C-alpha cells in the first residue's frame, strides 16, 4: 500500500537527479538482477514459515503427534535457513551494485574535477570538492546499504502481507487502512523539516571542516596575531550551526519514529473495536481476530522503518544534489585525448586587451609582440603590471581576451587546451611538489620519460648536485609539498620537470623567494642552460635571466612602455634602468 505513495514523496527535481545518476548503475545490472530475483523467494519463504508454525501448533502439538512435530520443526528450520541465505544474497548483491556504481561515479567525477578551469578553484575551496567526492558519496553508499535496500524488500513484503490480511478479512483491513492517511501526513510534515535540517547540517559541517583545515595551515599566522580566540569563535560558530541543525533533525527524527510507532497501537485498538462488532454481531471467529492482531505488528514495523529509510534516502538526495554540481560544471579539456604537440614556430600577440571580469578594468592594454622559435623574451615590470596575466593567457588558464593571439597563425582560443599544454612547459612561481619520489616529481609519470631522461634533466639544471647527496637519491620521497627540501631545491626540481618533457617553448614564471647562495648559483647556471637551448618567455626577477634575453618588454599598468635589449634599454635610461638598479637585491656572499 505505502510503497507507491512513498514514491510521490520525491520531488520532480529528485527524479531528475536519480535519472542523471541512474546511468552509473547500468553497467552493474547483473547484480541488481540477482538481488531483485531473491525477493520473491524470501517473500514466499516468510509466508511459508508462518503457515508451518500454525500447522505445528494446530496439527501436531495439539494432537500429540511427536514424529510430525519433529519433521515439521526440521522443515521450518530449513525454510528459515534458505530464507536467511537469500536475504543475505539480496542485500550483498544490492550493496555491490551500489558500491560499483559509486566507484564509477567517483572515478568519473574526480576526472572531471581535475579538468575544471583554474577559475573554478579560485572561487571554490578544494575542501568542498573533496567533501563532494568523499563524504557526500559516503552518504549515498550508506543510503544504498540501509535505505533503498530495506525500503525495496520491506515494501514488497508488506504488500504481500497486506494481500494476505485482505484475504482473511477485508473489512478489518480497511479499518487498518484508516490510519494510512495519518501516517502519510505525518511523514510529509516531517520530511520537509528533516531535509532542511539535514541540508543545513551538511553545509555547516563542510564549513567547519574547511575552516579547520585552513586554520591548521595558517596556525602560525593565527598565533602570531594572537588570534586564536577569534579563530576559535568562528570555528565554534560553524560547530554551533551544525549541532543546532543536528539537534533539530534529532527532534524531528525522534518524533517521526515515535509517532509512527504509536500509531501501530492506535490501529490495534481500532481492530479490537471493530473486531468486537464483527464477532458479536456477525459471528466471526475470534481466531481470525487474533491472527490479525499478531500480524498487525509485523505490518507496521516496516512502515516505521520506511520513515527512517526515507530519511536516509533523502540524505542521499541532498548529497546527490551537491554532487551534481560536479557534473554540471564545464570542463576545459576533453577527456584523455592523445593531443599532439604543435610544431612550434611562432607566437604573435597583436593588440591584446584583457580584463578578468566584464565589470573590471583592463589589466592588459594593447599588448603586441612576436616570439619566434629560439627567442628569449623577458617580461619585466612592477607587481600588477600584467606580466603574470600574459602568461595565464598563453597557457590557456584564462580566455576571453580581445585582439589576437596566434600560435603558428592559429588563433589561440581555437586550439584545444591539451594541444597548447603539450607544446608548452610552464615553470610556475608557486612550485607544487607531489608527495612522491624526486624521480617521480621530475618525470611525473609521463610515459615517454625514462629514468635516464630524468637524470639527464636533473643534470641539465644542476639539480643532480643536491640529489646525489641525498640518501635515497632519486627515490627520496618529498613530503608535504617540499617541506623536507629547501625552496631553491624545489625550484631546481621544477626546472628539471619542465626540461624533461623536451618541449620547445618554456614559460618561466620566476619565483621571488630568496634561496641560499649556492643554490642561487645553480639556479642561474640552470637558467643559462635552458636559455641556450629553448625558446623561453619569462617573467623575470633575476638580472641574469633578463641579461640572457634577446627581447625585454617593460610593462606598466598593463601596457608595454619600453622594449629592447638589456643594453639598449639601459642606454635609454628610463623605467628599465631604474628597475635594474634595484633588482640587485640579494647580496652575494
Amino acid at each position, binding site marked *: 500500500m505505502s510503497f507507491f505513495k512513498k514514491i510521490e514523496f520525491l520531488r520532480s527535481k529528485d527524479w531528475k537527479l536519480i535519472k542523471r545518476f541512474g546511468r552509473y548503475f547500468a553497467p552493474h545490472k547483473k547484480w541488481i538482477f540477482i538481488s531483485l530475483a531473491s525477493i520473491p523467494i524470501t517473500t514466499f519463504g516468510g509466508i511459508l514459515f508462518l503457515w508451518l508454525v500454525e500447522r505445528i501448533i494446530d496439527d501436531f502439538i495439539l494432537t500429540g503427534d511427536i514424529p510430525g512435530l519433529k519433521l515439521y520443526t526440521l522443515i521450518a528450520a530449513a525454510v528459515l535457513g534458505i530464507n536467511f541465505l537469500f536475504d543475505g544474497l539480496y542485500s550483498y548483491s544490492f550493496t555491490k551494485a551500489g558500491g560499483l556504481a559509486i566507484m564509477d561515479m567517483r572515478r568519473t567525477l574526480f576526472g572531471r574535477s581535475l579538468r575544471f578551469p583554474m577559475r573554478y578553484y579560485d572561487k571554490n575551496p578544494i575542501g568542498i570538492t573533496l567533501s563532494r567526492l568523499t563524504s557526500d558519496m559516503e552518504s549515498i553508499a550508506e543510503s544504498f546499504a540501509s535505505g533503498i535496500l530495506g525500503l525495496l524488500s520491506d515494501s514488497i513484503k508488506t504488500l504481500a502481507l497486506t494481500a494476505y490480511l485482505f484475504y482473511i478479512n477485508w473489512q478489518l483491513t480497511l479499518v487498518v487502512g484508516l490510519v494510512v492517511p495519518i501516517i502519510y501526513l505525518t511523514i510529509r510534515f516531517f520530511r520537509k523539516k528533516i531535509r532542511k535540517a539535514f541540508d543545513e547540517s551538511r553545509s555547516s559541517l563542510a564549513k567547519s571542516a574547511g575552516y579547520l583545515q585552513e586554520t591548521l595551515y595558517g596556525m602560525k599566522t593565527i598565533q602570531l596575531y*594572537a588570534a586564536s580566540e577569534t579563530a576559535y569563535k568562528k570555528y565554534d560558530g560553524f560547530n554551533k550551526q551544525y*549541532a543546532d541543525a543536528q539537534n533539530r533533525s534529532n527532534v524531528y527524527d525522534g518524533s517521526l519514529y*515515535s509517532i509512527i510507532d*504509536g500509531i501501530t497501537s492506535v490501529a490495534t*485498538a481500532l481492530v*479490537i473495536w471493530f473486531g468486537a462488532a464483527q464477532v458479536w454481531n456477525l459471528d466471526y471467529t475470534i481466531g481470525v481476530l487474533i491472527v490479525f492482531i499478531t500480524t498487525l505488528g509485523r505490518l507496521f514495523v516496516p512502515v516505521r522503518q520506511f520513515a527512517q529509510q526515507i530519511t536516509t534516502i533523502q540524505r542521499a538526495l541532498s548529497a546527490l544534489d551537491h554532487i551534481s554540481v560536479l557534473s554540471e560544471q564545464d570542463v576545459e579539456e576533453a577527456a584523455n585525448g592523445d593531443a599532439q604537440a604543435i610544431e612550434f614556430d611562432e607566437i604573435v600577440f597583436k593588440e591584446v586587451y584583457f580584463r578578468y571580469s566584464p565589470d573590471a578594468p583592463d589589466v592588459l592594454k594593447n599588448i603586441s609582440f612576436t616570439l619566434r622559435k629560439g627567442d628569449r623574451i623577458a617580461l619585466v615590470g612592477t607587481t*600588477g603590471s600584467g606580466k603574470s596575466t600574459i602568461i595565464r593567457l598563453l597557457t590557456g588558464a584564462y580566455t576571453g581576451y580581445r585582439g589576437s593571439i596566434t600560435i603558428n597563425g592559429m588563433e589561440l582560443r581555437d586550439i584545444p587546451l591539451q594541444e597548447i599544454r603539450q607544446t608548452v612547459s610552464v615553470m610556475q612561481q608557486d612550485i607544487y611538489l607531489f608527495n612522491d619520489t624526486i624521480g617521480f616529481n621530475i618525470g611525473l609519470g609521463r610515459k615517454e620519460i625514462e629514468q635516464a631522461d630524468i637524470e639527464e634533466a636533473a643534470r641539465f639544471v644542476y639539480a643532480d648536485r643536491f640529489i646525489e647527496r641525498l640518501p635515497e637519491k632519486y627515490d627520496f620521497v618529498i613530503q608535504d609539498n617540499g617541506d623536507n627540501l629547501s625552496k631553491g631545491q624545489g625550484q631546481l626540481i621544477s626546472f628539471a620537470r619542465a626540461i624533461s618533457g623536451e618541449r620547445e617553448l618554456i614559460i618561466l614564471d620566476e619565483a621571488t623567494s630568496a634561496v641560499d647562495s649556492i643554490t642561487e648559483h645553480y639556479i642561474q647556471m640552470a637558467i643559462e642552460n635552458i636559455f641556450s637551448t629553448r625558446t623561453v618567455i619569462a617573467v623575470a626577477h633575476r638580472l641574469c635571466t633578463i641579461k640572457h634575453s634577446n627581447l625585454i618588454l617593460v610593462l606598466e599598468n598593463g601596457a608595454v612602455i619600453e622594449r629592447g635589449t638589456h643594453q639598449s634599454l639601459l642606454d635609454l635610461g628610463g623605467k628599465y634602468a631604474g628597475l635594474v638598479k634595484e633588482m640587485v637585491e640579494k647580496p652575494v656572499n
Partner: protein
Amino acid sequence: MLSKLRFLLRYTDKYKWWYTGGIIFLILTIWVSVTIPEYVQQGIDSIASGRENNYDVLLRSVIAIMALAIFLMIVRTFSRILFFVPGRLIERQLKGEMFRKLASFGKDYYDNNSSGSIISRINNDINGVRMITGFGLLQIVNIAFSLSVTPFKMWSMSPSLTLYTIIPIVIVFIIVRFGMAFMVRNTRLRMESLQSLSGRIISFLSGNGVIKSYNIHQWAEDKVEEENVKLFGFTMKISWIRSFVMPLISSMEQMLKIVVLFAGGLLVIEGEFTIGELTEFIAYAALLTHPISGLGWVLTVFQQGFVGITSLQTIMNRKGVDDDKEALTEVECDTLLDKGLKVNNLSYRYHNGKEDVLKNISFEIKPGQVVGITGGFGSGKTTLINCINGYLKVQPGQIMFGDYDASRLRGDDIRQSVRTVGQDVFLFSDTIENNIAFGSGIEPLDEKIEKVVLQSALADELERFPKRKKTIVGEKGVMLSGGQKQRISLARALYWPGKLMILDDVFSAVDTDTERYLIKNLFEKRDTTLIIVSNRMSVLERCDFNVILENGEIAAMGQHKDLLESSDFYRHTRDIQEGGGK
C-alpha cells in the same frame, strides 16, 4: 580504562539532568510498551466472553490503548531527544576544546603531525565520543531494564526451557561478536583507506596546475583509482558481514520460535505445559531478542569510542607551550614595551636541530627606535625575530621586555604588543577586508581599512578587483601575486599595529616605487618601534642601527655610516646594489 571513564564523566556531568530526564522517560517508554499488550489481552478476553456485561470493559481497554499510545509517542520522543541532544552538544564542546588546545601547540607539534591526521582525529574520534554519549547511553539503559525483567519471568515459568532458549542466543551472540570484530577492524581499515583517498584527492586538486600543464590527468586518475578500488574492497568485506552474519540477530526471534515450539511442544504433549503458556513463552523470547541485538551494537560503539578517546587524550594531555605561564593583566600588557626590549646572550636551537642557529646574540632596542636586521641566507634573521615575537620559546633571561622575562610570558600577551609580518603570508579564504582586520578581534571598520590600504600601497590594486575590499581571495590567496599578498599582510599588521612591529623581508616582492612609498610611510607615520629584516640599503641606511648576522652570530652592529667602514658584508651589499645598473 578508568581515565577514559573519567574523561566521559567530565563531559557528561554537565548534562546529568538531561540524562536523568532521559532515563525517566525511557523507563516510562518501556513500561508503557509492556502495558499496552495487557490491555490488548483484556480486550480480546472481553470479546471472547460475549457482549453481555463486557461492553464497558471493551470500551475501557480500547480507550486505554489509545491513550497509552499517545502517551507513548510523547515519552519516547522525549527519551530520544534527552539522550541525543547532549551527545551533539558534547561533540561541539569537544571540537572547540581541541581547537583551542591545537592553537596552543608550538612548532614542534606541527612539525610532527600532518594536518590531515589532525583533522581526521577531530572528526572521527570526536564522532566516536558523540556516539557513546548519545546512542550508546540510551541503549545501555534500555538494555539494562529490558534484560533484567524478561529472563526472570521466563525462568519462573520453566527453567529447562529457558536454558534451551539461551543456548541459541549464546551461539548467535558469539558468532556475531566475531563478525562484529571483523567488521570493526575492516571499518577502521576502510576509514584509513578513505583518508588516503581524501589525501590523494586533496594533493591532486592542489597540484591541479601542474597536472594540467603536464597533461598527466590520467596518472592522477589512476592513483586515485587505486584507493577507490581499495575502498570498495573494504566496503564489500563489511557488506559481507552485514549481509550474512549480522542478520543472525534479526533471525533469532524465529530461531527461538522453532526451539520453543519443539522443546516446549514436547512439554505440552507430555502435559507439563499448556498451549497458552507456550504462546506466552514465545512472546517473552521475542522480547528478549531486541536488547540482545542492541547489546552487540553498544559494545561496538563503546569499543570504537574508547579508541577515539585514547587518541583524543594524547592531544588533551599534551601541554600547550604557554600552559604553565601566568597571563598578564591588561595594564601590564599595555605597558610591556614601555621600557624597550633587551636581548641578552641569546642562543637558540630548534627542537629537531643539531646545532645552535643563534649564538650569543645581545643588543638593546629603546622605544621608538627603528632597527634593521640583515645578513645572508640562513644567517638566523627569521629565527631571531621569531624568538622576539614569542613564537619560539627562549631560556630565562635571554629576552627581557623591561622587567618582564620573555620566557615567563604567554605568547599571546607578547603578541598583543608585537606584530609580525612574516615571509610566508597566509590569507584566509575570506574578503580582503576581513583578512586585514583579522587578529584585531573586531569587525572591519571602513575608515581604518581605507587608511591602512593606502599606507600599504594597496589602494590602486584594490580598485581593480571586482568587488574591491569585499573581494574574496581564493584558497590561501591564490589569486594574488606574492607582492600583493605581502602588502595585505602588511596592512593586517598596520590595522592593529601594537607597540613593536616586525617586518620580515616584506619588500622582497615589491618594486622600487612601491618600496619607497612603503618605507616613507612606515618611517614617517609610525608611532611604534620597528624591526625590519631586509637586505636593501635604501631601508638599512634609514635605521637607527643595524644588526648584521652571520651564521647565527652578530658579525657587526651599528649605524649605517659606521657599518660601511666596519663590515665587509655591508659594504659589499651596498656596492652591488649601487652598481647593479652600471
